[in-house]
């Protein structure tokens, strides 16, 4: 199941690269930068999963815990950005959490 999850993350990273290239070709540099942020989340989650899933004493439980930690920390950062009317970091925070929500939704059910 984790293997499928890893494949899903890899597919998202590859699809993201195409999105970035398309946006850059369209002359939408800022939107392309935001797409890079989103792509980076899938890449980070893939790295974390790869590192934790086979580590003795870690496994899928540790992956889930890390994803939840990201969720808490990024929510707090987004809240802070909104409080301070920091538009750039608000957009980045929303993109990160949206991608993370998608990652968590695809985390294998029996692994949750």
């Amino acid at each position, binding site marked *: 199941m984790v293997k499928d999850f890893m494949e899903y993350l890899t597919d998202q990273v590859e699809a993201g690269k195409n999105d970035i290239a398309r946006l850059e070709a369209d002359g*939408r540099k800022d*939107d392309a930068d*935001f797409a890079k942020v989103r792509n980076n989340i899938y890449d980070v989650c893939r790295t974390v999963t790869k590192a934790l899933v086979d580590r003795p004493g870690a496994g899928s439980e540790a992956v889930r815990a890390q994803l939840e930690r990201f969720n808490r920390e990024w929510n707090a950062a987004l809240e802070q950005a909104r409080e*301070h009317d920091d538009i750039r970091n608000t*957009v980045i925070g929303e993109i990160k959490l949206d991608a993370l929500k998608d990652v968590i939704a695809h985390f294998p059910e029996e692994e949750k």
Partner: protein
Amino acid sequence: MTQENALKIFKSLSDMSRLRIVQSLTQGDMYTELLAERLELTPSTVSFHMKKLEEAGLVVSRKEQYYTVYSLNRKLLEASLFEVASSEAEQIDEQQKREEVYRQKVINSFFKYGKLQSIPVQRKKKLICYEVIAENFTLGKVYSEKDLDEIILRIHDDYCTIRRDMIGEGILRRNGNKYVRLR
């Protein structure tokens, strides 16, 4: 118009999403959510682009009930490209400009949302940070130690070090338990 303003205009328009926003606004004033729907962007992404357009003076915003409505600054958009491109350079001393850029870079690195993340080791940087903290005090006003510490504490936990350093740097003067900002 200065060359800096002209550069902001060209930079903000050299993005297809922002160009499409400007194009949409030629049809009439619009609010964020409507623009987001039309351009298939999230509302916060539209807000991000609007901020850039506003900074360049290309759009203006107004509040209408719960919405922020944007409209074009037609006067600026009707200016000829020749007028914009022939704007003059602002007469700013180059050294002064470099120092201001450096100061802003230090502030951006060490402060986040008004909080000092860590006290810089390098004196030059430390001084810049303390000058920013000093802006929280009114020049010439007398502060009790408690009031002073409370203000510094809102910016960084180590209020003792900061208070002591600010006195040492001649930013604050101590007289018994009373403090005054000197510069």
